[in-house]
Each structure stands twice: as structure tokens, then as C-alpha cells.
């Protein structure tokens, strides 16, 4: 079965005089507009001793600015019937709201005040309040959650001391505590200029009018020197790394991470399809072998992170009771080795491609998700058209392309293995 469906979105890109990149994608399918601003700064750009700062900073941008009162973002957007959020990641920070289309000016006001007039609104009291919120976020989402510290343990093992990708976006408690108001000002000056940002509008807007309004709200914000992009050393060459992490859990979970093509590298799409082939669907390699046949895993998953400078592909499996982490890893490795050495069948590749393709379409259905995809393509790849091109790229992936990635990525020297094990069994203390 070959597929027919793909999608193509017409959009415009503009560069304002101050360096702000603007992407406009009109769609009259719903009376809504998403406004998405992505800044090209993330946790990998944090300086030493300030892990978690990019994320804490993101919280502060919801605390008002010169013309927007504290909690104004939430209040105004909810009052207009919209949704809003912000997220921080290794490579970028984004702020976005979807509103009824007649409220475009509201979004542009809030986002431009953030970008141009943030500093007068920030105070020590707001910083201290959001510091506590973020520390509680770390407790709730990581420390008090089973397996919650696994990913940061992967990073700590996969990258050498000082590497930009070595620490998690949430950061470490002592660094969150150390953040000062001077840090806030400095970070804003360095990273939040219009020429380090991309604004995406998706929805029921007329492009010429929308552009005119964007210019009104953002045009007077001066550009600033953009910091030199930090150098990200290759993580390869360190050999296999591993750690056993005792946690308050009843069964072990094994995290296998291989250094892989980044979002910018050739081979990213093939790596992505590989993860569908490995663990998406009951006939996928890992599920079939570990869940159905050997019945040693309760759950398996595989995914790749679309990171800018280094790539990471994960396979994760949770043990059934009585199965130890070593046995589970051995079984996972057997499946991965078999794929690496023996290749894939046309049938499973076709299915994996179809599942990946549906997932691409899915990510483009809602305006908010589509704006997110456009922004990532623009900021991390420098090419918003990737959103349209990706369908062809996935469609054209043939067996040799996917097998080549499997053969070069699924190698022991690229592996970081973390075994999260019941604390009692390991003799260690809990993570809480």
C-alpha cells in the first residue's frame, strides 16, 4: 500500500528591520489565531552554576512587563477565551497563545511587551516567588515521581563535565537557588532581542494586515548584538557509559540512549522512523519480542529528541516483576543488534513510515501544534519549509537509508545505559 495523503501549507516569511523573523501561515479553517514566539536560547546556553536558569527565566516572562501587570498574561488570555503557555528546552524557549482571531492584537501586545519592555517589570519579589514555584515543579515532576530522575542521569553520563547538553532543563536545586536579579537582566539582554527570535502566526488572519500589525507592535524594539553561538563538542569517543540509579520503584526500568543524528543532520528522519519500527505498535520489534514473546517487559517505548546540535535516540523498557535490569537490557540489546546487523523488512518499514506520517499530520492539525512545528523548523533548522518537505523525506526513506542509520547508530560506543532499580534491592538510598 502506498500512501497518498500529505499536506502542504502556504506561508510567508518576512524579516523586520530589527531582525525579527516573521512567519505567516493563513488558514480559515477555524476562527482562531496562534501566536508563537520562539527565542533561540535554551538550557544549553546557560552558564556554569546556573543550570535551570533559562526555564526559571521563562517563568518570569509570565510575571508582567512595563505595560502588562503581574499575572496579566494569564488573565487577559483567559478572559479572551484563549490558551497560553511557555516551554523551555535544550535549544530554545517558546511562548505561545491561541485566541479567537479577533484578538490578534492582544497577543501581539503581550508578546511585544515581553520582548521590548520586560526589565522595568521584574522585581526581586517576583523572582523569589517563581524560584519557589520552579523548585516545586522540580519536586513534583522529577523528584517525587518514580523514574523521575532517569533522564538527567542519562545526560550526566552521556556528556562530559561542562558539556552544554549535560544538565536537564529543569536544572539543579542549588543553581535555581543561586539565580539573582543581575542574572535575569543579563540573560534578557543577551538572548531576548528581536534578532534572536522568530514570530509565527497561524490561523484566520490576512497576511498583509497581520504583517502590518506585527510591525506596529514589534518594529520599534531595537535589535541587540546576538551572542556567539556556543560551541557544542561532539559527545562521541567516550565509549559506553552506564549507571545504576536506585529509586523508590518496585520494578526496574532500563533506559538505553544512543548518540544519533540531530534534528539538523541527515539521517534524522530515518532515526525517527526507526523508533516507530522499534516500539510503536504491537508488531514493532521491541514490543513483539519483550512484551508478547518473552513477556519480560510491561511497557516499551522508543523516541528521538529533535535537538539542534547533538542527537539522542532512546529505547526504554519497564520490567515485569521478577525480571532484573541486566536481563532486560540484554534482551533489548539483542533486538537492537538484530536490527542493526540483520536489517528491516519492507513490510515493517512501510508500517513504520505510515505511522510516522500520521504522526506528522497529527502534529499539524491544530494551529498551535502547526505553529510549533513551523517555529522549530525555522529556528533549529533555519528552514520553515521543512514542515512541508518532511512528508517527502519520510516517504522516500527506503530500506537502505533506515538500515544505514541502524548500522551506524545502534553501536555500543554510542550507548549510555541507565538502570533505575528498586532502592531496597540495590542497597542504596531512595531518590526522594
Amino acid at each position, binding site marked *: 500500500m502506498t500512501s497518498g495523503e*500529505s499536506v502542504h501549507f502556504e506561508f510567508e516569511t518576512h524579516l523586520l528591520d530589527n531582525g525579527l523573523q516573521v512567519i505567516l501561515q493563513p488558514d480559515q479553517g477555524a476562527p482562531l489565531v496562534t501566536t508563537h514566539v520562539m527565542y533561540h536560547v535554551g538550557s544549553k546556553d546557560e552558564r556554569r552554576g546556573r543550570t535551570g536558569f533559562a526555564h526559571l527565566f521563562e517563568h518570569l516572562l509570565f510575571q508582567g512587563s512595563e505595560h502588562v501587570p503581574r499575572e496579566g498574561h494569564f488573565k487577559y488570555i483567559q478572559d479572551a*477565551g484563549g490558551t497560553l503557555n511557555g516551554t523551555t528546552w535544550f535549544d530554545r524557549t517558546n511562548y505561545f497563545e491561541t485566541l479567537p482571531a*479577533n484578538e490578534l492584537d492582544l497577543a501581539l501586545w503581550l508578546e511585544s511587551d515581553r520582548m521590548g519592555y520586560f526589565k522595568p517589570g521584574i522585581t526581586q519579589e517576583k523572582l523569589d516567588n517563581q524560584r519557589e514555584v520552579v523548585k516545586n515543579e522540580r519536586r513534583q515532576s522529577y523528584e*517525587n515521581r518514580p523514574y523521575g530522575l532517569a533522564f538527567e542521569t542519562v545526560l550526566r553520563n552521556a556528556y562530559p563535565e561542562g558539556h552544554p547538553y549535560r544538565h536537564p532543563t529543569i536544572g539543579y536545586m542549588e543553581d535555581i537557588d543561586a539565580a539573582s536579579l543581575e542574572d535575569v537582566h543579563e540573560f534578557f539582554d543577551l538572548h531576548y532581542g528581536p534578532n534572536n527570535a522568530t514570530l509565527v502566526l497561524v490561523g484566520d488572519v490576512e497576511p498583509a494586515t497581520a504583517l502590518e500589525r506585527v510591525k506596529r507592535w514589534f518594529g520599534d524594539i531595537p535589535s541587540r548584538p546576538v551572542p556567539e553561538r556556543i560551541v557544542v563538542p561532539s559527545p562521541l569517543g567516550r565509549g559506553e557509559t552506564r549507571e545504576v540509579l536506585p529509586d523508590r520503584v518496585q520494578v526496574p526500568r532500563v533506559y538505553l540512549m544512543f548518540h544519533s543524528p540531530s534534528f539538523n543532520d541527515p539521517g534524522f528522519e530515518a532515526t525517527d522512523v526507526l523508533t516507530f519500527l522499534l516500539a510503536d505498535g*504491537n508488531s514493532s520489534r521491541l514490543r513483539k519480542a519483550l512484551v508478547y514473546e518473552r513477556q519480560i517487559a510491561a511497557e516499551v517505548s522508543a523516541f528521538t529528541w529533535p535537538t539542534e546540535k547533538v542527537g539522542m535516540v532512546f529505547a526504554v523498557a519497564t520490567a515485569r516483576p521478577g525480571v532484573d535490569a541486566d536481563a532486560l537490557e540484554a534482551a533489548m540489546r539483542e533486538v537492537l543488534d538484530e536490527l542493526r546487523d540483520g536489517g528491516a523488512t519492507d513490510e515493517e518499514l512501510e508500517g513504520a513510515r505510515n505511522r510516522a506520517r*500520521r504522526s506528522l499530520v497529527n502534529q499539524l*492539525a491544530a494551529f498551535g501544534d502547526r505553529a510549533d512545528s513551523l517555529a522549530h523548523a525555522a529556528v533549529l533548522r533555519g528552514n520553515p519549509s521543512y514542515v512541508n518537505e518532511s512528508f517527502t523525506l519520510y516517504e522516500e526513506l527506503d530500506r537502505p537509508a533506515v538500515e544505514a542509520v541502524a548500522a551506524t547508530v545502534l553501536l555500543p560506543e554510542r550507548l549510555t545505559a541507565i538502570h533505575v532499580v528498586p532502592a531496597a534491592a540495590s542497597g542504596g538510598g531512595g531518590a526522594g
Partner: protein
Amino acid sequence: MSPAAVDRTIRPPAGPSRPLVLPDFTRLPDAGDLPVSFAPRPGVPEVSLRLVLEAGASQEPAGRAGLAALAARLLTEGTADRDAQSMARWVDRLGVGFDASAGYAVTVVSLDALTDVFEDALEFLATVVRYPSFPETEVARVRGERLDEIERQRDEPAIVANHALIAELYAHGLYGRPVGGTKDTVATLDARAVRAFHARHYRPDRAFALVCGDIGADRVAAGMAARFGDWSGEAPAPAVPGAPEETCRRVILLDRPDSAQAEIRVGTVGVPYGTGDHHAIVLANAVLGGLFNSRINMNLREDKGWTYGARSSFRFRRGPGPFVVRTAVETGVLAPAFEEILGEIERMRSEYVSDAELELARHALTLSLPLQFETAGQITSKVSRQRIYGLPGNYWESFRARLEAVGPEEVREVCRRYLPADRLVLLAVADAEAAAARVAALGDVQIRPVA
């Protein structure tokens, strides 16, 4: 390019608003005994289908909690001619999203497919809904996975707290246990029970199907007729749980030593869908804890910095679902956090909410409707809820007018009626040694291990 300056000092005025257009479902010819409705949603080439069956946990025989969920999970695990892996290869090759899951009231089978494979996807869906064979080996495997999952849930403070609270509120009633059942009941389930449940409840006459997406009505009608045209049979009438005995105020600590946080729940038995004061309850909850800008979150998060977030909700169901406040805080502020939550509830009961708060809540709930009906998947989910719970056909069309008719008196009245302080259960999953003395003033404290 130097356009006229903008006025940053005020919130910019909104442009002319557009009339609310909600998806318009058309009844297609029944497929056999199955009613089918369709609404177009052009745009991306995908189709969403929801098939809703009167096969929820409320239909389970006594002592068989989890049977509905297990049956739903096993639909894809084999037919008379195909084993589980053969079924998996079929659906995985199509690349469609398929899910079947049971709730208290119904089981929802959902399909999300690219338009080009709609008929093939439908063939798969009809096969698993109508002809599953529930092989012994797969039933045993999936039951084992369920039992493991129940064990693993003991590691998650949030899930422990949720389950403990509903057990407190509903004791042995339907809503007192998770849909998926408990260790003891799941262990009793076998292939015979699953087959009998399927034979009895996967019947079309009380079921319905909704289809929405980038596809034509004719194609949907033809596809459904081809696969369900000969499907007939009657399902038993739904069973609606009544109200449990009234709860009384108590404090429960589930001991999880050295926890990094205390996972908090404050709850009581709420109300079903369809009460006369439904819209006042919706509005009251939005002011109290339904939104980011609600009182509880503004107090605990934005003012105190004690939590990453705090929310409240009334779970409307066919019977009276729970009212729950949920948050997680540092153990050191457990008692004051409880006090603040109780204080906010009390304030709803003793004072009128301000017009500004009411207006914000009304706007947030109504102006967001286009956003809640944006994608095909959202549309089929929301409209199926409307039908499952017997809401009027114009529920969403009249939503705004109904909310506008609610004033501060009625908001106070529903809080007085449904949130009496002496019936609130206060529960935390926390380090009991660190927490016990602090919460003693709040009521009779019971300390238990995490079950």
C-alpha cells in the same frame, strides 16, 4: 516602515467577534442497528471516529471490577482466523491510531486515520469490535500486565492519592474504585468472563458512532454500511449509580516516608450532569479552581509559591462524581496549604464572588469554545461526551446564555449546598512523621501505609 505608534498602556481592543459556529452533525442512515452521525472538518487529511458502546464499568457483574477495561484492551488480541501478532501487523501497517478504553459509563473505541486509509481502518475497527476471540493466552498475558500496572501505580503519589480519595468518598460504590479494577478483582477475570461481557454489551442498539474529518458523507455512509450493515442486537439498559452515604470531615495521611512533596487532595461527593444548577456549579468551580487564574492557584502558587499548580474540579458523570481539589506542596507547608484551600472554599460559601471574577470565568468558559472544537479528534470527543451524558442537543449553543443567567447569589448557593466544610475529606500522601503533628488541628487524623 514606520507605522503609527501603538498604545501600549491599555489592553488593545478586540476586533469584531464572529458568531459561534459549532460542528453540525448530520444523522446518516443507521448501519444495521448502529446510529451514525457525521460532520465534515476539512483541512488536514484525517478522519476521527468514535464508537461509543454501553459497555462501561457500571455494567460489570459484582466482584468483576476491571472487566470492561480488560475487554476493551483485549479487542485487538485476536479473532477466530488471526492471532494477536497478525492483528498487530494489520493495524501497524495501516499506520492508524486505534484505541479502546472503558470508563464508568461506556467504552469508547476510537480511530484516527489519514483519509486515504479510512475504509481499511474501518475494516480493522469493525473486525475487532464484532469478532474478537479473546484467546486464553492473551487474556492471561494482558491480565498479568494489568496486575503489574496496579502494583506500579503504588509508586506514583498522585495516583495513590486519587485512588485513596475516591475509596474514602464512595466506599464500595462504583466510583469508589478505579475503572481498571483492583488487584483482587482483576485477578479473578478470565477469558470466559471477558467473552460473556463482550457478547452481552458490545451491541449496537444503544451504541452510536460519530465521524468527523476531511471526508465526504457518502464515503462514510458507504463504509459504515459495508461493515456494520448486518450488525444488530440489544444491549442491556445502563445502570446509573446513586448517591453514596454522606461523607464526614476527616484527615487522612498516607505515609510515604521521605517524600519530596506532599500530594494533597481535598474532596467530597459532587453532582451528576443535568442538575438544574449545573451552570452555576461550572461557574463556581471556574472561580474557585478551574482555571490558572482561579483563587486556589493564585493563592497557593502565585502568591505563596508553595506549589507548581493547584486546581479543582467537579467530575460530572451519570451519577454524582467527585469534587476534588488537587495540588502538591512541600511537606513543611502541608497544614497551611490545607487551611488556605479550606479558606478559599469557605470564602465561596460566605461571600459573593465579584462581578469581575464572574465575568472572567464566563469569558474563559465560553469564548474558548472555538478552540475546544478545533480538530476532528476534539470534535468527536466533545460531542460523544454530550451524548453519553444525555446533555441537550443545544448544550453548547446555549452554554453562553445559560452562564450569563447565573449571578453571584446562585454561585454562593451551590457552594453552600455542595461544599459544606463538615463533609470535606482532607487527604495527603506524605511523610507522615513530618506531617502528622502539623495537621492535627484540622480534624481527626488517620495515618495509614500506602496500600
